[in-house]
């Protein structure tokens, strides 16, 4: 039920959080906990670590609701960016600590691992939030092994359109690989 909330919901939520309404915090959790936990788990691959990140994310929002700027984009993407940043940060820390402890692997291995985890989480988010027609086309082609003509028939569109959707869907997805090395993607074009 990842309903895209209207901007008004975002603004009201921010005001309620700023006002110190505990009920608003509960609603915020109900709407975003599975997103936050899912992304954190994708990056860290550990239940306890994902729980901890979930806690950090909601604490951050509750303590600093004013750092969200509705003009910069939806609350949902801001929450995702924050989660991603904190999760990648933790992954880097724990991997670096492991590296320092037993010296197995190299810094390049570490970077590769962080990059891969970071892109995987971003890809999850992109797939869940891309326009439904693109996602449907990708799902038919990848998971159901339909070729683009069959997918076009399933979707009731022309073969041209099916090709277009597959290409566009992958183009969106490919942005998950971009800039995922820094570990601290600047969400909303500023630092928190």
């Amino acid at each position, binding site marked *: *039920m*990842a309903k*895209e909330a209207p901007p008004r919901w975002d603004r009201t939520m921010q005001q309620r959080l700023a*006002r*110190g*309404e*505990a*009920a608003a*915090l*509960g*609603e915020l*959790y*109900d709407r975003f*906990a599975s997103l936050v*936990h899912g992304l954190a788990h994708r990056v860290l691959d550990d239940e306890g670590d994902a*729980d901890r990140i979930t*806690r950090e994310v*909601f*604490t951050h929002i*509750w*303590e600093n609701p004013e750092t969200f700027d509705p003009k910069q*984009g939806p609350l*949902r*993407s*801001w929450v995702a960016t924050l989660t991603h940043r904190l999760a990648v940060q933790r992954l880097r820390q724990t991997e670096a600590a492991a590296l320092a402890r037993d010296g197995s692997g190299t810094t390049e291995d570490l970077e590769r691992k962080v990059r891969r985890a970071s892109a*995987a989480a971003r*890809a999850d*988010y992109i797939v869940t*939030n891309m326009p*439904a027609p693109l*996602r449907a086309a990708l799902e038919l*082609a*990848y*998971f159901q*092994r*339909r*070729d*683009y*003509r069959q*997918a076009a028939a399933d979707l009731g569109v022309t073969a*041209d359109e099916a*090709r*277009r959707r*597959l*290409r*566009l*869907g*992958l*183009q*969106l*997805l*490919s*942005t*998950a*690989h971009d*800039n995922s090395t820094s570990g601290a993607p*600047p*969400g*909303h*074009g500023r630092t928190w």
Partner: protein
Amino acid sequence: MNGPDRFESYNGRIPAPRSSVEDGGQPLPDPSPPAPSAPTTASAPLVLEHRVLKSLLGAWALSACSPEEAEAVEAHLGTCGPCAEEALRLRDAVGLLHPAEPLDLDPMLRTRVLEGCLDRRPPRIPVPEWVAPYDAETARLDALLQDIGDSEWHAPVRLRWFDRDGLVSRKTTVAGVLAHLMMVDGLVALALGLDELPPMVEASGHTGGEASGGRPGPAERTEAYWRASHRPPTRAVRRPWRDQTHTLVRTVAFEAGSGPEAPAIALGSGSGSGSGSAEGSRGPGRLSVDYGNFELPLRDSMLDRAFECWVHAGDIADAVDYPYDPPAPRHLHHMFDLAARLLPKTLAARRRAGLASPPRRLVAAGSPGRTLRLEVEGAGGGEWLISLDSPGAVASAEHEVAHIALDGVEFSRLAAGHIAPHEAVAGLDGDREAIREVLFAAASLSRM
């Protein structure tokens, strides 16, 4: 396209849940046969213009075009730099696709996370402790509903309760149960002055109501809703139900903070005397919820709604074969406490209806009277003294004539009307008649 380093939502549409689209377990169809439009002769390679080749890159990366088209694309990549670059990029992107993993969020994580937050920054408008069970139980049920598939919403459920002298039941579906919860929660919304009723229910509820006098009660409202829907309820009922639960928590929190003194919860640790909750004279303590043929103070009503939410979540979980745990012990304790406090009045009502024997002796209000000790064991349990002769009498340990000891889960099943009084597994000691009548009164706490 959006900046690559941000999480953007690509449009304002509502994405379908991934789990309903992907079905990891299904067998993969055979590799696609060559498309009829593509010539299959190896001797005549396909010649396509650049525009078409470029448009094929996505399908190519996914191995979703004909072998001839794939061959043409690959030949083209050797000569066209931009296309080669894009092809590589899209191939890499395919590696990021994977089936959605079912995500089971630990329902207790919610409490831990919220408490952690509130410790760091105390709320200005807190959720009162007597609303916490409702908040937690509705969140738990919502998490269960998140996981169930479309068809499971129509799984049959039998609502069960105890009516006067025996167990009764009513058939509905998972979605029907949720509609029932929504309609009864609506009674609280009404008490709070919230505009919650779909017009059709308002109309049919009043004409079809059977509650003596007053407004339609839980059963009438539920039946009216079911009657008024042309088709059986579907998963679409989840959203309005959830929105209403959120609105209730929010409004009650404000309501609780608006009194001159916001009283802390007055529930003792199992020392309830049966004389009713210590309500303040202002603020939320003054509000009561009209159930048609009885009323409950707002705070008791929120506990009642929490209990019913848990009970019906259990019904739903059974219907779709999911495990479902009892509430957190401290929430359970509040629910047990409410039940214990309601017992003397329920007993009196059964007497008035001729369903229980008259009191042994008349006790002046405020004086000690015959008492039954109710001991609820296990998580959230405690001990309560139940006044037997009249709700106005004071229960006291010196006047104990009987003792019932039973497990918390058993007590819940009894109070929910899921088992008959004689089926309850309990340790019984003392006055047989008192025990029998209290067990029947406990079962009578249930309703549709």
